[in-house]
């Protein structure tokens, strides 16, 4: 089947789906949806339709981004918009479907929003939701809207048009277009993508490779997973365009084994591409051939670093090597290799179809386009978002994320994972772009955004990251192997109440050594969490070292719990929940805590509704 026929068939099927004469039910079955119980909701929905004798069509989609409402279900009746319902369980699903489909009574109080041209009074439109309004979706353009396992859905929404266009251009023209768009690597470092392609394209060796880096290892980041689960073809199309532009015939997707669903979706997508002549010889009738393989990672954070990643594909330990030579000149098996991140690649087809200047119209002067972020931690609306670069940090946290829950105070925002840093609450006006984040001491990173409230200890956070980086250090170079260990030892001492005032200077000293001396990005950036917390939260370090106190109540040896007799009304919840019966007191009278029995498990602190449990 040629592409033209395929496209018209895809469009016909997509149109038929839009004009369906029976209800259409979409359910988000990404990993996060499943973790929240979407499969049970799916079963319940199917059973309900059977029970009420209502024919209906079911469609599995990826994550639409509102993860905090998972499990999510969208129901559309003929000639109506999609109505989204969130936080479902089997019982609620049954009630909604019976009421909406059989009794024609929409349970408005449970509806989240509508999506489509039609509107329903009293229910906001998807685009109007405070979480969605500031967003612009380029990389995520299809996520949550199409069946990721159906290539025709992708094609009907303009998929593979970018490739078709690229194949009609000279490879150098394609590279010029990407350069003009200003797209920078979304994996973290922000190297201009067009320039990277140009370097690989100019390498004289005729055997070249293109690699998609889907080894999303940063704890706190899940954009790449959601993108691959929700719209795998956009990433693969980006790879094909890149391969054509640099003149290579073979590509690898290096993906972490912890993402089984994303791997499955990629396998399905590749099968479909083979079936429709989008891989192999003479792609789209042009003299261009390309082959794709999936390589599963085996659990090593350092393999996100490109030279380590290549060593892992070659079958060895994932250890980085010094650069230069850069992969563009000497990469996989010694051949010129171009490595791009998942999100970078997903942007490529959109740039080709809509044009470089359209893409460059978003963002700031030096940071063009949009960036996806995974919003998590102590924030009301957690999820997957895509915003124009240059947006203020406060807008992301307060408008999109809805602020910090439970009336707690915002303390910091962590960006960039173990390679990044903590930005303090008073920098909410900071524009989110590559340069501003770097100036604030953090980095863009791949896009993990973890919000932290007053219950987060800013000495424990760098300790947490260093536990991670020191375990994940491959051990090849000394500054990283010993430096991360040394920093961790010092932080452990401080958190145990055994810190000395000179530890701070020592930490700064080691930071600099590791940053300058380490072989690869893992070591060079490992000191970042320590550096930024020292820069913005030094008094908290001093409280740990000098006063032997942990103000956030995290480092167990440095605090105890006490009950505020003014606030305690003697409800007794804490006493009942305390696993070691350390809380004493009569009913309706202020309680107290037996300090020598208390294990500081935080149960009383978490269950008290009156904020009567104090951290002292």
């Amino acid at each position, binding site marked *: 089947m040629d592409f033209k026929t395929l496209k018209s068939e895809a469009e016909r099927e997509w149109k038929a789906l839009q004009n369906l004469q029976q209800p259409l039910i979409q359910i988000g079955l990404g*990993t996060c949806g499943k973790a929240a119980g979407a499969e049970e909701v799916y079963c319940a929905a199917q059973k309900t339709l059977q029970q009420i004798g209502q024919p209906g069509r079911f469609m599995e989609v990826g994550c639409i981004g509102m*993860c905090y409402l998972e499990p999510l279900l969208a129901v559309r009746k003929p000639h109506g918009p999609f109505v989204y319902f969130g936080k479902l369980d089997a019982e609620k699903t049954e009630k909604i479907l019976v009421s909406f489909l059989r009794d024609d009574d929409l349970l408005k109080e449970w509806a989240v929003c509508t999506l489509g041209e039609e509107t329903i009074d009293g229910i906001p439109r998807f685009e109007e939701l405070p979480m969605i309004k500031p967003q612009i979706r380029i990389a995520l353009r299809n996520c949550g809207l199409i069946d990721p396992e159906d290539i025709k859905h992708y094609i009907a929404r303009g998929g593979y048009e970018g490739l078709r266009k690229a194949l009609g251009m000279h490879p150098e023209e394609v590279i010029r277009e990407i350069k003009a768009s200003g797209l920078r690597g979304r994996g973290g470092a922000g190297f201009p993508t067009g320039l990277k392609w140009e370097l690989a394209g100019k390498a004289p060796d005729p055997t070249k490779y293109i690699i998609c880096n889907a080894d999303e290892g940063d704890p706190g980041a899940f954009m790449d997973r959601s993108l691959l689960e929700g719209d795998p073809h956009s990433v693969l199309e980006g790879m094909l365009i890149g391969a054509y532009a640099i003149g290579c015939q073979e590509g690898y997707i290096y993906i972490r084994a912890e993402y089984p669903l994303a791997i499955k979706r990629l396998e399905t997508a590749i099968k479909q591409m083979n079936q429709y002549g989008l891989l192999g010889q003479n792609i789209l009738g042009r003299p261009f051939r390309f082959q794709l393989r999936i*390589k599963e*990672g085996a659990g090593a954070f350092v393999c996100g670093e490109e030279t380590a990643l290549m060593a892992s594909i070659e079958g060895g330990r994932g250890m980085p090597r010094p650069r230069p030579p850069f992969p563009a000149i000497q990469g996989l098996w010694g051949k010129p290799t171009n490595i791009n991140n998942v999100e970078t690649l997903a942007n490529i087809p959109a740039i080709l179809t809509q044009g470089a200047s359209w893409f460059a119209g978003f963002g700031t002067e030096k940071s063009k386009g949009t960036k996806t972020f995974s919003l998590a*931690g102590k924030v009301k609306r957690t999820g997957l978002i895509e915003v124009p670069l240059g947006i203020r940090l406060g807008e992301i946290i307060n408008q999109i994320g809805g602020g910090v829950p439970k009336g707690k105070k915002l303390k910091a925002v962590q960006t960039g994972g173990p390679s990044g840093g903590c930005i303090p609450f008073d920098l909410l006006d900071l524009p989110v772009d590559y340069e501003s984040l770097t100036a604030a001491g953090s980095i863009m990173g791949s896009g993990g955004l973890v919000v932290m409230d007053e219950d987060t200890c800013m000495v424990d956070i760098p300790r947490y990251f260093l536990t991670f980086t020191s375990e994940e250090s491959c051990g090849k170079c000394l500054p990283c192997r010993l430096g991360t260990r040394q920093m961790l030892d010092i932080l452990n001492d401080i958190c145990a109440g055994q810190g000395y005032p000179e530890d701070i200077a020592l930490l700064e000293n080691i930071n600099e050594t590791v940053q300058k001396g380490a072989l690869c990005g893992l070591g060079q950036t490992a000191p970042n969490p320590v550096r930024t917390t020292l820069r913005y939260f030094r008094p908290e370090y001093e409280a740990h070292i000098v006063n032997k106190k942990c103000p956030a109540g995290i480092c167990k040896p440095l605090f105890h719990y006490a009950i505020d007799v003014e606030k305690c009304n003697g409800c007794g919840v804490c006493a009942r929940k305390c696993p070691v019966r350390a809380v004493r007191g009569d009913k309706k009278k202020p309680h107290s805590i037996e300090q020598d029995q208390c294990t500081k498990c935080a149960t009383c602190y978490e269950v008290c509704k009156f904020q009567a449990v104090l951290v002292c």
Partner: protein
Amino acid sequence: MHLVHFEQSPLQGRLDPEALLAEMQVRFEGRADELIPMLQCVQKALGFLPEQILLEIARLTRLPAARVFGTATFYSQFRLQPVGKYIIRVCRGTACHVKGSGRILDDIQGYLQVAPGRTTQDGLFTLETVACFGSCALAPILVINERVYGSTNRSKALRLLSDMRGG
């Protein structure tokens, strides 16, 4: 949280080592870059990498045994010890950490009386930690065999484990 049924880890005892090696010889050519996929194949079938099989893989790929063992021990996915019926993975990602997964891990460790990476004496549970499971929006996350549990807390986690021990 949904207490439906607990699938056993699908892997164990599905194949005997000899049949597995025969299958590997069909599936792989023995190239060096197939080493990691070979190890993954063995672990999928047996749940861990027995020493004997690692030596066989060294023979098949003509790589030094040290290279095979070096690779197997470098990656955290690979285990050299057999696992229990249920593999409990506690996510230690940043969002999970901020939302108290450390305390959940402490509780589970106390309940099972094993350290991460170890299996209980009755062979029922293996406790592991995962660097990040990528479902941070639903932190804290607990994974039991292939099933992911989002938005857990300490009491839910312990209830799951005691249900499994009883059932």
